[in-house]
């Protein structure tokens, strides 16, 4: 399980996240890739291989999106792979980049994630209707927001969680995003604003949901030898984890994300983390909906099952709290271009551990951070542990 070679993150890049961007997907990939290379002081020439993460082809509307995006991701005449695990892609892509370098095959890897959801017209929700089993589920008319609503309801029911408690996550994350230069939905809102927003699909209300977005993110990974040559501040990838639960969601209990726990245990074991709440200084769990931040904090073993709402109420998860959660502003505040949103979280942990997060910097010199994404049909978890 333990790799011989340590792998460092040495650069990061991120585009604006917006509902409709003029740039094509490959132009977005280029912007993020170039920024990541510049921040590492490297050029495309220095890159041995490229790993691209991007979600269903149906968003951009190109069957074979990986090929289409390859030049923007800097892959021209290089070893190139696209990885795809639904919403989990953004954190899985750097995991895949990690093994390219940890294995000894390559010394540097450019990891790029892109999504241009606005191409799907009139609304990307239409692309989501075809992610379900064509025979068992699609004839019933399932839709993505509805399946989240039933999961949220189950989670609230089992632990007796109130909507007011969940709304606090949306308030916090949209507030944190006020300090993020790329953010799409930064806002000063109140719990009442969330509770008074339109009920779309009970118990999901308008302000419980992240937006659809266009955007891209990138990271540069390097072997220990190369990292030490080019930077005094490498951030090490000390743990990676990923895994999937039953493809039949009727065979799972939706109140708890077991798939996140499996991925987290794999990553923590690799990183030697025995007591996650004590040893992790900052976390970016996947938050396409406000309840998912709480759900995923529990799956990441950052607290006991059902305890995340209480920690949120007590302010523990605020940027200046004992366990800052989503200091970036998360998907709720920064935006949700699926794969790029997951990688944005890894970028945030990188900047936090380097002390480069500016107004978003969590106090106390954080040394260990974790990012997580969630995908496929609600049963895929991907986790990465970074240390400075």
């Amino acid at each position: 399980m333990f790799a011989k070679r340590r792998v460092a993150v040495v650069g990061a890049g991120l585009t604006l996240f917006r509902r409709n961007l003029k740039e094509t997907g490959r132009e977005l990939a280029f912007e993020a890739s170039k920024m990541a290379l510049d921040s590492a002081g490297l050029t495309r020439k220095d890159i041995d291989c490229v790993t691209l993460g991007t979600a269903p082809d149906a968003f951009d509307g190109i069957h074979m999106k990986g090929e289409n995006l390859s030049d923007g991701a800097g892959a021209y005449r290089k070893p190139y792979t696209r990885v795809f695990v639904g919403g989990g892609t953004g954190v899985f892509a750097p995991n895949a980049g990690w093994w390219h370098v940890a294995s000894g095959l390559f010394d540097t890897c450019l990891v790029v994630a892109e999504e241009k959801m606005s191409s799907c017209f009139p609304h990307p929700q239409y692309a989501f209707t075809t992610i379900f089993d064509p025979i068992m589920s699609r004839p019933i008319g399932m839709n993505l927001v509805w399946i989240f609503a039933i999961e949220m309801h189950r989670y609230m029911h089992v632990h007796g969680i109130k909507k007011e408690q969940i709304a606090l996550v949306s308030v916090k994350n949209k507030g944190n995003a006020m300090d993020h230069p790329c953010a799409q939905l930064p806002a000063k809102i109140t719990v009442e604003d969330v509770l008074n927003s339109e009920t779309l699909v009970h118990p999901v209300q308008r302000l419980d949901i992240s937006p659809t977005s266009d955007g891209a993110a990138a990271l540069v990974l390097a072997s220990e030898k190369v990292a030490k040559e080019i930077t005094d501040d490498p951030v090490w990838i000390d743990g990676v984890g990923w895994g999937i639960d039953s493809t039949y969601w009727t065979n799972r209990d939706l109140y708890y994300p077991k798939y996140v726990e499996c991925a987290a245990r794999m990553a923590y074991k690799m990183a030697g983390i025995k007591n996650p709440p004590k040893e992790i200084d900052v976390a970016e769990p996947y938050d396409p909906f406000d309840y998912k931040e709480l759900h995923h904090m529990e799956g990441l073993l950052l607290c006991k099952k059902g305890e995340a709402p209480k920690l949120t109420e007590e302010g523990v998860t605020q940027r200046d709290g004992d366990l800052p959660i989503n200091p970036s502003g998360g998907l709720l505040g920064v935006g949700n271009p699926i794969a790029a949103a997951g990688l944005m979280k890894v970028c945030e942990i990188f900047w936090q551990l380097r002390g480069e997060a500016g107004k978003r910097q969590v106090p106390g010199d954080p040394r260990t951070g974790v990012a997580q994404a969630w995908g496929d049909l609600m049963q895929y978890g991907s986790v990465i542990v970074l240390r400075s």
Partner: protein
Amino acid sequence: MSLEKIGDPRDLTHWMGHMETDYSYTYGIAGEKFFKELKENAKIMGTRCKNCNLIYVPPRLFCERCFEKLDTWETVSKRGSVHTYTIANIDIDGSKLKKPIIWAMIKIDNVHGGFVHKLGEVDSKDVEIGMHVEAVFKSRKEREGSMLDIKYFRPAKQKLEKALR
């Protein structure tokens, strides 16, 4: 509060494109038998894994846990309990539905699994997690071998059947 204005993507210079592809999906080995029973006899079938002591509903050809092929078929209950549910007020494009739809995950009694389906013959404010429901089938003539042969699930009218195993 500075929420982004929702713009029309056609405000940017653009080209309208279209990806048209239709599909013919086979039901598969397990699906064919499941839908035949659903259509002809209004029965819900499952497959049993003897190693794992589970009856899978919907039925499948293999066990995802022990990875053995499954060929023991069982007729299972048409009843189950509401694991969780939601009330949809909007359609897929965000437009308001005339009548809200209740979607529920139903765990079928005494098996491993169940269905996500609509609830009917019940007011949304009377739905509870844990309530017992039963499948309501279309008439024999209307059934065509699809998940829509079950019209919806409604609150169970009689006492629960005895455990099947």
